[in-house]
């Protein structure tokens, strides 16, 4: 085969892969050794929410379909996983898979209106779905280890309550953090693989122009639903991780408006980049915890997200994941020019 200039794997790609692998190893091995259990739990939650953000970024950033139902789908995944974790002895990874598949099916149903409507109308419809899911959850509650389909305990059985089980290899908080991080990496790789192959190109075409995608032979119905199915699958898996992390779940933890906050945060983090999802996970879970630690009300984080999303929409559509490296580069240039300028001044005048 002829070698065409510019088609080989470039050095930049290798360097980037090495940096990511290094950062991942640092987060996996060093971080839980350096911080306390409280912060390990916070980072576990941040990793879980970054997978939810990944799904939302896929829908909105890659295909151009807005969904305000992602936190509700996280709850669906958490519900399914917790019911199975109480009710069966299935291995943890299998339960994560089932939670992902169940959520994938429900998420695809949520995505059906996207075949007809888009933009604000789609946002509204998906928000209504989220409201409906929240409502159903507030009636049926999360499973508590009892019998029947809903797995509720009666008042007399309440002393039998035990926490949702974790995988045998990851019962301690640091071990469960590592487990979560590995599953998170697998979800990112799954989405990355889809974005870099046939579906990703079809999504890019749909986002750019549906007539042009159709003319290129893209089955728009199929690829839009696949995006919803995949985004919901990873969100369902994240829900399963959340069930094991929390030990006990409550509908209060999944208010409908959290899906709106998540969209704002994903926009802030960077909707077009996978890094944006990581930043979003940290913003939505680590930032409130840091504020609380510093004695500031956690509601200040909502204010910050509001200001942040305004700033992103007005000046930096790529979000933090895009803007921070650019700004750092600019800062580096300014600094070197500053030093360079002084060096020039000492040289002979032109």
């Amino acid at each position, binding site marked *: *085969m*002829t070698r*065409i*200039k*510019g*088609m080989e794997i*470039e050095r930049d790609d290798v360097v980037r892969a090495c940096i990511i692998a290094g950062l991942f190893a640092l987060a996996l091995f060093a971080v839980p050794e350096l911080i306390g259990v409280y912060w390990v739990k916070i980072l576990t939650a941040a990793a879980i929410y970054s997978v939810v953000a990944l799904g939302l970024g896929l829908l909105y950033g890659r295909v151009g379909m807005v969904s305000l139902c992602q936190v509700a789908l996280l709850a669906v995944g958490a519900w399914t996983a917790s019911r199975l974790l109480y009710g069966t002895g299935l291995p943890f990874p299998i339960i994560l898979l089932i939670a992902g598949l169940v959520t994938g099916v429900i998420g695809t149903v949520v995505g059906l209106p996207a075949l007809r409507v888009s933009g604000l109308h789609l946002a509204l419809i998906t928000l209504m779905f989220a409201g409906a899911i929240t409502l159903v959850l507030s009636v049926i509650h999360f499973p508590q280890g009892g019998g029947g389909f809903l797995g509720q305990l009666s008042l007399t059985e309440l002393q039998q309550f035990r926490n949702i089980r974790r995988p045998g290899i990851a019962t301690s908080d640091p071990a469960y953090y590592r487990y979560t991080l590995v599953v998170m990496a697998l979800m990112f790789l799954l989405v990355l693989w889809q974005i870099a192959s*046939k579906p990703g*190109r*079809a999504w*890019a*075409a749909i*986002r*750019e*122009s549906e*007539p*042009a995608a*159709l*003319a*290129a*032979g*893209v*089955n*728009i119905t199929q690829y839009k639903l696949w995006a919803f199915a995949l985004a919901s699958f990873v969100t369902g898996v994240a829900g399963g991780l959340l069930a094991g992390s929390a030990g006990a779940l409550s509908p209060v933890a999944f208010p409908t408006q959290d899906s709106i906050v998540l969209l704002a945060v994903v926009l802030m983090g960077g909707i*077009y980049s996978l890094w944006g999802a990581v930043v979003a996970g940290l913003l939505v879970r680590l930032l409130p915890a840091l504020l609380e630690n510093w004695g500031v009300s956690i509601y200040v984080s909502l204010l910050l997200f509001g200001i942040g999303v305004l700033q992103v929409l007005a000046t930096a559509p790529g979000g933090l994941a895009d803007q921070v490296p650019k700004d750092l580069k600019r800062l580096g240039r300014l600094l070197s020019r500053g030093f360079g300028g002084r060096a020039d001044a000492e040289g002979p005048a032109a």
Partner: protein
Amino acid sequence: MIEVEDLTVRFGGVTPIDDMTVTFPGGTCGLIGPNGAGKTTFFNVLSGFVKPAAGSIRAFGEDLFKMADFRRARWGLRRSFQTEQAIRNLSVFDNVAMVHEHSGQARVSRRQDVLDALAFVGLNVSPREKAGVLGARDRRLLEVARATVGMPRVVLLDEPAAGLPAEETVHMGDVIAKIPEQFGGALVILVDHDMSLVSACCETTAVLDFGKLIASGPTAEVLRNEHVIRAYLGTEEEL
């Protein structure tokens, strides 16, 4: 060969194509007419974006209306758009590859087919370059590469040289004229307002005016036809 019979399209009270019967024999065929004559609407009927009120279109003996819109690309229908639609976020290579992977062609030949299509149109940029950073000429060429990759049978080009300076239009004309020979007898229909481009690459030409076919035949003859000249000059017809 494409045979269009009694084709009528209505949008409410407007009839952009009115009882059109025409045959595109093969090779590179021109389709011209003043603004609003129904040329792009005709392309949209072929693509399946617009459902006609009446009529039939047979392309290489097959009834086009029996195929779902997205399946027509797999059958071999390709098109470009008046406002070019290169996908800015994808690389040049992926822009063409995404058409190839929906064309039903073998996966093993994809890389080579895509690079061949880029070489055919004479696009001298790195295949890894994002389409969004290309200039107007390169984006237009990329669109022709997208329209010709993966064994096309019918290639619809909607003003592919719009906005290009003269020498780039000449290059575009050379590329278009070579398509039928390069791709095993593919039929090209070229819509354009630039008569020098149409006469340079089209053996036959059809002329639409207000949705009606007013002339068709060898390009040189059609361009001398007095109805055609009147339609372009806007003189009132008295028939």
